[in-house]
């Protein structure tokens, strides 16, 4: 009798605990639904053509858009990508091809650690390295900060993706007498290209969502600017400023900017997916 009781108790405990894990998963997803719900429902009210092509209005006037911030964000991730993508891909290639030694281990470890360094710290470094010598805030300083932030993601994805390429492919290239560098570039990296592009995309879209490293590097700009030597606007800094502002109209626009930012990141990923897919098919 007694043992049967324990048997049932054991089973019931198991069932309760298993359903609790399901409840935890649901609880984790609820905030996601809330955030998306509010961003879409509140953001959509100001989502019109003006938002994309008009400039921000001065304090007190309602309406206007964030054309400068959209262009600014694109420019910043462009500059960041120009730094982070080559460094990341080359370092990742080094790690997978030649990194089986102590130095490779150290670099791998440091990139992992770098990925945990808060983005605001990277902003401070970009400030001391670029803004202080130049004596003013600039798009290039913000872009450098974003570039540094992209490096770990791109490096590690590149390494992982190259490692996934079957060894036989490499050996086939070498057996044909193709030098190692050509084999790596034309065969290995090419077949890992789709995965590497995913890493690049991940790096770029994370950078697009960064605010902290831009606050005192790119600063922000209420006017149109595409000069890399001048302060530049970005969607994220606008969201921050407008969310804190006492004007309801600006608060509304912050939601719209958030929606546009999410759309931008989604479009970025879509475009990348299309590019990588067609490349893959021709292979």
């Amino acid at each position: 009798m007694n043992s049967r009781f324990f048997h049932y108790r054991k089973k019931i405990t198991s069932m309760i605990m298993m359903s609790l894990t399901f409840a935890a998963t649901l609880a984790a997803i609820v905030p996601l639904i809330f955030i998306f719900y509010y961003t879409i429902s509140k953001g959509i009210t100001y989502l019109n053509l003006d938002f994309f092509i008009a400039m921000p209005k001065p304090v007190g006037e309602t309406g206007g858009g964030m054309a400068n911030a959209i262009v600014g964000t694109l420019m910043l991730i462009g500059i960041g990508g120009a730094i982070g993508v080559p460094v990341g891909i080359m370092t990742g290639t080094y790690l997978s091809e030649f990194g089986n030694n102590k130095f490779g281990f150290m670099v791998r470890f440091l990139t992992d650690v770098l990925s945990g360094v808060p983005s605001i710290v990277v902003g401070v470094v970009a400030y001391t390295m670029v803004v202080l010598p130049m004596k003013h805030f600039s798009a290039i300083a913000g872009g450098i900060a974003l570039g540094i932030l992209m490096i770990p993601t791109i490096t590690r994805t590149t390494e992982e993706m190259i490692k996934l390429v079957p060894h036989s492919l490499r050996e086939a290239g070498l057996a044909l007498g193709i030098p190692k560098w050509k084999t790596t570039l034309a065969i290995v990296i090419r077949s890992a290209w789709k995965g590497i592009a995913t890493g690049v995309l991940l790096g770029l879209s994370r950078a697009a969502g960064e605010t902290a490293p831009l606050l005192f590097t790119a600063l922000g700009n209420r006017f149109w600017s595409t000069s890399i030597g001048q302060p530049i606007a970005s969607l994220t800094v606008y969201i921050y400023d407008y969310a804190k502002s006492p004007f309801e109209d600006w608060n509304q626009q912050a939601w719209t900017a958030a929606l546009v930012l999410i759309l931008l990141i989604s479009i970025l990923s879509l475009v990348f997916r299309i590019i990588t897919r067609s490349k893959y098919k021709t292979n």
Partner: protein
Amino acid sequence: MKNKLKKIFSSRNLGDLIFEKLTLLFAVSVFLLVLLMGYEMYLGSKLSIDKFGWSFLVNSTWDPVQEIYGALPIIYGTIVSSLLALIIALPLSIGVAIYLAEVAPPWLEKPLSFLVELLAGIPSVIYGLWGIFVLVPWIRTDVEPYLSDKLGFLPFFRGAPYGFGLLAAVLILSIMVLPIISSISRDVLKSVPRSQREAALALGATRWQSTMIVLRDARSGILGATMLGLGRAIGETMAVTMVIGNRALISPSLFDPSYTMASVIANEFTEATSEMYLSALIQLALVLFVITIIINAFARLLVWRMNRRWKTT
């Protein structure tokens, strides 16, 4: 075999040599970058380090007007907000990880994992925006009055229900670290060999008991995941700055405003007019850098060791 091929081809070929050195150059640059970051911040904060030294960390006055900079309340706010967020997020994350790795059928696991990872991909300024306009009003009108009504005899739940404050920061941080801890823990759980579960089940264990065995095998990896979450919480800037109330204050009450290292930097950096002020803020960034590096290094070692353990056997 691989080494032999390497020898034959790379030693003779100039192209290979150039290729290797070129990629090496980039790897070295990443290596140097991390060192340079620390060095730059040390230089930038030299003024403040020379003046305050270690008392920077234990002095509790942060007063830019008098040029006295003690970061104790800020460090306190950083640690308390991060630890409380972990206390909320950790059990939930482990639940999520167990569900995704052990319980969920494959058709459900993929979309759910995707959603959890999506949560990690939302820009933190959007969390902050949501915090200001949705979370904080809810805390002000519902959560804080309720807590002070039921638990007001405790010092943690006293004071005016203002909304902005430690409680809001803790809640938003726990939402933000949850996907990190749960997705890494899920991977760690999955790396535990199937045979462990099969052995437990064959001995008559229930599914929960077998999961507990897997959890025990994975504990160092989960600890690593937790540390990574802690590192993220300590360095999180935008969402915290937007909801924590931004006042350097040591108070037991969760309703009171607080400050974290990252939010001080975000808030005051552009306002820093004197060199000493700027230097103190850079020193704060240096402290943050060192703390997160230590936490991350430790966490990575734990996760690596965990993954390697099963690979070698």
